[in-house]
């Protein structure tokens, strides 16, 4: 492969944003007929590199060569015209137009100046048949699943004569079957000689398809490796740049002294709590300093349980007690008053004000509880903000940086900091590690462990069993909107048993215990 000429070469690319060196002398090569994975943590510079390549951003230094000619695109349109197409996670097509038209708009087959719809439909069907997609091309694109829309986007890009195809996190919202189909299409395109840049967080997919891997970290190039010569563990190390023993240490702490923690009165006790059409009545206690993991499939009722505790939904059955006192948490304000904090799943869209600085975003909730007449003194702000930036290792560590300049993972940490600063007694984390890289994941897991050591109760919702097992004292399993098992996390509990509980309802688990 190295004898051939690269179709694309990026040399010594640098890009500076106000206060951040997003890319620092990065090199990147891409050969025809390969799938090249671009890997790195959140904030490593993957997105920036792609935006520089496609002309969304200009470069501050460095050159881009396409087919031996130096290029500098003024925008994605120019890049596309030159044969560099990008398919994003969120599909950039028009949902109101038909599938066929989405593929051909701007290049419609015409006869005597009029759009030749019959010819367009025929060619669209032909093109999609080549990637084994048999759908009614006259239906509006919006009536198909995201996976199909993505494949249509790829079909368009390829038909526009793309030589370089960039797939930016295409698999994030697809299920396993859809991912398999997408990977198959990628292989087929690669065999046709197209160069594919594949950006993803999923290691399995990288090892399933990529020929080579380029790793970025903190805006710098770590290296370029043939996939076969880079074991997974080595890749992870290169991405996060530190040893993995932090994870191991957490592991050993998981079996912490559970008896001592659960000895006293529970912080929160739900007794037959439920909501018609949402969650069947369940009973659950959470003690101070205890981490309760909530496991189950998507849609099993995990988030609904959390919403009842936070008052986002109102329970219509059962009782809730805080510190042994019966109480009704009717709304989130009441919950916050009782010391409950809830980091919801879609934190990126829900919580942060992009224009405000990191400092202002972190202080927001605290200021809200104090009322606007009692501003938080600036010195106290600085002190608090600095402490949390450090504790969560928010990067860049600049409190005055507008939040929108931060990467996704770091934005999530800012939102977490906002809740932590209110010093909650019960912290509910709904999928806090989804869509973020391994390094940030480890940091958040370690943080959860620290917080519970400090006496905070944590309700931890995650789809990743390993993570739940590593952190929790008790694992609660949801299935079909019912609480089906509560498993003490002792030496005997492993992913298999939890999985069985999720799968079978695990009534016998309880029987065994009794």
């Amino acid at each position, binding site marked *: 492969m190295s004898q051939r000429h690269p179709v694309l070469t990026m040399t010594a690319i640098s890009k500076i944003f106000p206060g951040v060196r997003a890319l620092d002398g990065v090199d990147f090569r891409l050969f025809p007929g390969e799938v090249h994975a671009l890997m790195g943590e959140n904030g490593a510079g993957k997105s920036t590199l792609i935006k520089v390549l496609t002309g969304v951003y200009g470069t501050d230094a460095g050159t881009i060569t396409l087919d031996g000619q130096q290029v500098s695109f003024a925008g994605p349109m120019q890049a596309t015209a030159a044969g560099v197409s990008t398919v994003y996670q969120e599909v950039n097509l028009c949902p109101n137009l038909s599938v066929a038209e989405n593929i051909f708009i701007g290049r419609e087959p015409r006869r005597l100046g009029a*759009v030749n719809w019959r010819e367009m439909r025929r060619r669209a069907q032909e093109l999609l048949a080549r990637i084994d997609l048999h759908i009614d091309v006259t239906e509006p694109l919006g009536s198909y699943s995201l996976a199909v829309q993505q494949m249509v986007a790829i079909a368009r890009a390829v038909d526009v004569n793309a030589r370089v195809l960039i797939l930016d996190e295409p698999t994030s919202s697809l299920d396993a079957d859809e991912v398999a189909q997408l990977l198959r299409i990628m292989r087929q395109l690669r065999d046709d000689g197209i160069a594919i840049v594949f950006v993803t967080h999923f290691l399995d997919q990288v090892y399933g398809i990529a020929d080579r891997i380029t790793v970025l970290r903190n805006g710098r190039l770590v290296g370029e490796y043939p996939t076969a010569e880079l074991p997974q563990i080595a890749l992870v190390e290169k991405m996060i740049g530190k040893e993995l023993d932090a994870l191991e240490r957490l592991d050993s702490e998981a079996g912490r002294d559970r008896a001592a923690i659960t000895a006293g009165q529970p912080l929160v006790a739900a007794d037959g709590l439920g909501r018609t059409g949402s969650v069947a009545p369940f009973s659950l206690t959470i003690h101070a300093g205890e981490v309760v993991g909530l496991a189950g499939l998507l849609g099993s009722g995990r988030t609904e349980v959390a919403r009842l505790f936070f008052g986002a939904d109102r329970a219509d059955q059962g009782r809730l007690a805080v510190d042994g006192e019966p109480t009704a948490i009717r709304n989130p304000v009441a919950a916050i008053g009782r010391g409950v904090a809830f980091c919801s799943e879609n934190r990126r869209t829900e919580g942060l004000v992009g224009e405000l600085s990191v400092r202002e975003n972190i202080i927001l909730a605290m200021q809200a509880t104090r009322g606007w007449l009692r501003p938080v003194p600036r010195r106290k702000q600085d002190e608090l903000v600095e402490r949390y930036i450090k504790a969560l290792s928010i990067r860049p560590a600049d409190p005055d940086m507008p939040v929108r300049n931060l990467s996704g993972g770091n934005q999530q940490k800012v939102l977490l900091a906002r809740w932590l600063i209110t010093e909650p007694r019960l912290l509910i984390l709904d999928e806090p590690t989804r869509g973020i890289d391994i390094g940030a994941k480890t940091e958040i897991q370690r943080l959860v462990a620290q917080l519970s050591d400090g006496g905070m109760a944590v309700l931890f919702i995650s789809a990743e069993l390993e993570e739940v097992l590593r952190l929790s004292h008790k694992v609660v399993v949801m299935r079909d909107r019912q609480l089906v098992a509560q498993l003490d996390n002792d030496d005997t509990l492993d992913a298999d048993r939890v999985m069985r509980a999720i799968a079978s309802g695990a009534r016998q688990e309880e029987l065994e215990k009794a």
Partner: protein
Amino acid sequence: MTTTPLAARGPRAWWRVPQRQVPVLATLALLLVMYGIGVSQYRAFSNIQVVFNLFIDNGFLLVVAVGMTFVILTGGIDLSVGSVVAMTAMVSASLLNDGVHPALVLLIALLIGPTLGFAMGCVIHFFDIQPFIVTLAGMFFARGMCTWINTASIPITDGFWTSAAQERIRIGENFVTVSVLVALAVVAVAAYTLAYTRLGRNVYAIGGNQQSALLMGLPVGRTKIAVYTISGLCSAIGGILLSFYTLSGAPLIAIGMELDTIAAVVIGGTLLTGGSGYVFGTLLGVLVLGVIQTLITFDGSLSSWWTKIVIGGLLFAFILLQRLVGIRKK
């Protein structure tokens, strides 16, 4: 892989109407029901001339509404149309009064609207300003120009104009006017443009998702400027038809007409957010407004304000219908 699980969907049954055509069919049904009510209540309603009169009385509204359809399909709005209609009629009347040759007057009148539309389109595109506010400014400007030309109504006595106004084209025992033919020609050209030209398809793409349209390399700016120019041209044609109809130019005529056209377009099934709708629907929308008016005229005892009340109710119902269709889609 022999079958694709992603595409488990058979061919469409012949009786299943594509979702995007549901609003238009609803309007058609409404029109037929209202016409039926008219025929059953009033004996004279079944006269074919009643239908022709709908076109005669609403020809200029139809032409303006066609232009508005283009704008709304891109997700924009044009509030200047009523004023541009009035200004075109005013300019024509004033020039004819000064003895300018009618052919030249026609040419000038047809240039004013598109020029203003082009200018507004440029402001909207290059300065990235809300169409609402730009065309609001255009509306005040054009209305101001009307009174600047003359504060009073100017009668038209020119021979070409009067013959165009009074020419009756016979169809059997009934007749239509020149305006009707012009309006139908505009509808036909517009429908072809939207369905079969790149410009038309780009209009739909921009209405669907402007950002995507840009990324797909479509000429978004050019198309947006074009739709406001087209709307300006339609307003100019509408203004001339109105001056045929009234044989005068009046500075305060067609006030609020922009709202009537928007109502007609929306009742005709075009989404206010853009990307979905047909000129044929707009034609039906205009006819619905016309039938309401005719019904109230036939009744004789109802105040003409009832027209507005019924239109208000219909608009509300149609926006809800669009919402429901949209929700079902998701």
